[in-house]
């Protein structure tokens, strides 16, 4: 078998991915193993995990691919400083040591991280947006497609349109830094008091609580959207070289004050700004999608880049855009670019230095349901629990399902750890916290007492694929929870009088109140037996007992923590939160039987 390793990192969300004869064997985000959220360090643990999962060593690698061109990125960094001067001195003094400290000599760094790597094994470099495009198209089920990648910035490109056909990707056009949708959305994320590169989906969740009263101001003064689908930012309001807040004094004056600190309460203007920037972003993305359709003529669209994690916008593209079918890389951010780099190297033409493998797309995509990380054997799980003095029962598969469903029906919150770990930001039923979506108080209970996070944030439903149309207005499948769709009319409960702002949270809007957002939408995961048999079986059992084929599915972690990976991570999180029941492998644990009230955390808490 021929193995290709892909690597991303040194900026945010480091990861590694391994292909074997073009098939995705393993992919892991560094944060899951290092327990440091958004870990940007060189992904040594992920690399080791990928090799271990395949049972190989560095000697067996045919090629190693890195997700961007570091020297091109460095030259862009210098040019940006030249373009921004005399501003930017402090950013320059902070950035240069990182570059000189190891970001430039990637070949040396990769070779030292892979002892035994043969000298003839090439180390290849894709461009950043090529890696995103490859992760989207080459893993998709489409033989040909338009490819749209949108993020903060790669080397120069912040947005790119390409055409995919067979095994080839042809780049067509780009938008260059500093005109960046990702940068703009992150600027508002930081302004509203959330952390850049991890808090963007909080801003997205906040949007439905506000009014779109700033949209016209944004379009007149901050971003101009053009007929041809492109856009330009007004840099008089933004500071693209600032790492934390990205906005300047003029922005603060215009939008009502300085950036919100995380410990300050949310004001109406934050809700309205969230709603407005979300609306503007959706319009911009629709314009880009229409441009991609015009440039390629394809009926299929593949999406990747961090902005493709904006599932509300994705839902609009699917409903209102010109494409018949949409496929979004589940790990659309920089972690997925590790996979894209490997795919680009595997399928890339010989004259470019690739391995020129032929491609035959399958009816389903090649992501294996997104379950590409490591798993522990039942014996390893029990060994971990024993080390932690846990109290558990070992059950067979049927008994485990019954007990878990009993707990869910009783209104308990269940931690569920089964099989291989997910790759990407969403938990898809292998590292999940589950709850009954019919309960009106489940959302606030899980937010405040289990996840320790902001109460406004909605939870997402997992629904049996065969019954999804009864509950959600979604045409087709959504196995990776990347599309937002309205809750079906038949499930909606009219609200007599709409409350304002965050008070809307308390109003019951559907038969599934815990997963229905204040605008009547939900971020849906459709679960099918082929991709996700065990979780599908759990949903079927819950449906058989209650008539409801839906569960709350949220990631198994608390605020500031990466999603749990191992049984030990899961047990610590279980003990340190208010999760009632833990089902890890074949082991069933109840909170009241555990000897611990608290355990030392296994993660480095990252503040918002």
């Amino acid at each position, binding site marked *: 078998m021929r193995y290709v390793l892909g690597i991303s990192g040194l900026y945010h969300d480091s990861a590694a991915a391994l292909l074997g004869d073009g098939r995705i064997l393993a992919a892991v985000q560094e944060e899951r193993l290092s327990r440091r959220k958004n870990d940007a360090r060189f992904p040594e643990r992920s690399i080791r995990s990928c090799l271990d999962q395949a049972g190989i060593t560095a000697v067996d690698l045919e090629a190693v*691919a*890195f997700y961007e*061109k*570091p*020297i*091109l990125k460095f*030259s862009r960094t210098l*040019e*940006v*400083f*030249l*373009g*921004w*001067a*005399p501003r*930017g*001195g*402090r950013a*320059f*003094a*902070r950035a*240069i*040591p990182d570059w000189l400290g190891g970001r430039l000599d*990637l*070949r040396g760094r990769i070779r030292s991280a892979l002892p035994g790597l043969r000298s003839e094994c*090439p180390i*290849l*470099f*894709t*461009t950043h947006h*090529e890696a995103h495009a490859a992760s989207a198209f080459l893993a998709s089920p489409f033989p040909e497609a338009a490819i749209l990648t949108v993020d903060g910035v790669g080397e120069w490109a912040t947005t*790119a349109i*390409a055409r995919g056909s067979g095994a080839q*990707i042809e*780049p*067509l*056009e*780009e*938008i*260059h*830094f*500093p*005109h960046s949708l990702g940068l703009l959305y992150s600027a508002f994320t930081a302004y509203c008091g959330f952390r850049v590169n991890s808090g963007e989906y909080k801003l997205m969740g906040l949007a439905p609580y506000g009014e779109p009263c700033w949209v016209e101001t944004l379009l007149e003064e901050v971003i*101009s959207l*053009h007929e*041809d*689908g*492109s*856009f*330009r930012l*007004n*840099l008089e309001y933004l500071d693209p070289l600032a790492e934390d807040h990205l906005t300047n004094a003029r922005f603060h004056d215009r939008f009502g004050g300085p950036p919100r600190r995380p410990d300050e309460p949310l004001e109406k203007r934050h809700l309205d700004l969230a709603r407005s920037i979300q609306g503007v972003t959706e319009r911009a993305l629709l314009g880009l999608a229409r441009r991609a359709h015009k440039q390629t003529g394809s009926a299929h669209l593949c999406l990747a880049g961090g902005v493709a994690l904006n599932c509300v916008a994705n839902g609009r593209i699917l409903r209102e855009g010109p494409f018949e079918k949409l496929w979004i890389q589940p790990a659309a951010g920089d972690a997925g670019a590790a996979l894209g780099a490997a795919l*680009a*190297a595997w399928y*890339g033409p010989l004259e*470019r*230095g*690739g391995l020129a493998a032929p491609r035959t797309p399958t009816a389903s995509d090649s992501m294996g349901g997104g379950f590409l990380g490591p798993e522990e054997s039942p014996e390893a799980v029990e060994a971990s629990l024993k080390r932690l003095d846990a109290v558990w029962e070992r059950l067979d598969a049927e008994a485990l399902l019954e007990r878990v469903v009993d707990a869910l029906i009783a209104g308990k919150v269940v931690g569920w750890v089964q099989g291989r770990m997910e790759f990407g930001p969403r938990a898809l039923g292998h590292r999940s916290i589950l709850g009954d979506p019919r309960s009106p108080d489940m959302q606030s209970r899980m937010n405040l007492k289990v996840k320790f996070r902001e109460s406004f944030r909605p939870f997402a439903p997992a629904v049996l694929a065969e019954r999804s149309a009864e509950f959600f207005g979604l045409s087709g499948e959504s196995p990776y929870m990347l599309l937002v769709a309205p809750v079906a009319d038949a499930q909606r409960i009219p609200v007599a009088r709409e409350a304002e702002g965050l008070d809307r949270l308390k109003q019951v809007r559907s038969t599934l109140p815990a997963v229905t957002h204040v605008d009547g939408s939900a971020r849906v995961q459709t679960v099918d037996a082929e991709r996700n048999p065990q979780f599908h079986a759990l949903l079927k059992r819950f449906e058989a007992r209650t008539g409801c084929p839906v569960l709350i599915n949220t990631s198994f972690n608390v605020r500031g923590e990466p999603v749990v990976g191992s049984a030990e991570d899961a047990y610590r999180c279980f003990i340190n939160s208010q999760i009632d029941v833990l089902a890890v492998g074949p082991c069933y644990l109840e909170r009241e039987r555990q000897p611990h009230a608290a355990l030392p955390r296994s993660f480095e808490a990252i503040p918002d």
Partner: protein
Amino acid sequence: MSRPETVRSFRDRFAIGASLIPPVALLMIANRAGWVPGSPRVYLTVMPVVLGLGMLFPTLVEPWHRRFSRMRSWLGGRLVFLLLLGVYGVAVVPLAFLMRWVGKRPLDVARSGSSWVQSKGYGSLRDPF
């Protein structure tokens, strides 16, 4: 966590012992300035002695070594920061103005017009640039 004396590497011991030299060097400088009594030869003699003592008894010196390492990182970071700020002011800013004077603008900050740029292709996978 401290390791027993016998299992430390020579390099570790040397690093720990060497952390005692800068305070002695500072005393020697103060001596040259007339603030501290003694002769420079004394301080020069003391330096290898403290180095040797530190290497022989690293556990005793280790708390100081840790504090010294933190101070050194902090100071080094700030010195590099100031140095690079200087480079920025002396080299980058004048170059930026010169580029603007000859009509070169690395950043396209215009507010109007299409921002689409024709792609030049991905280039060779072998190149990091």
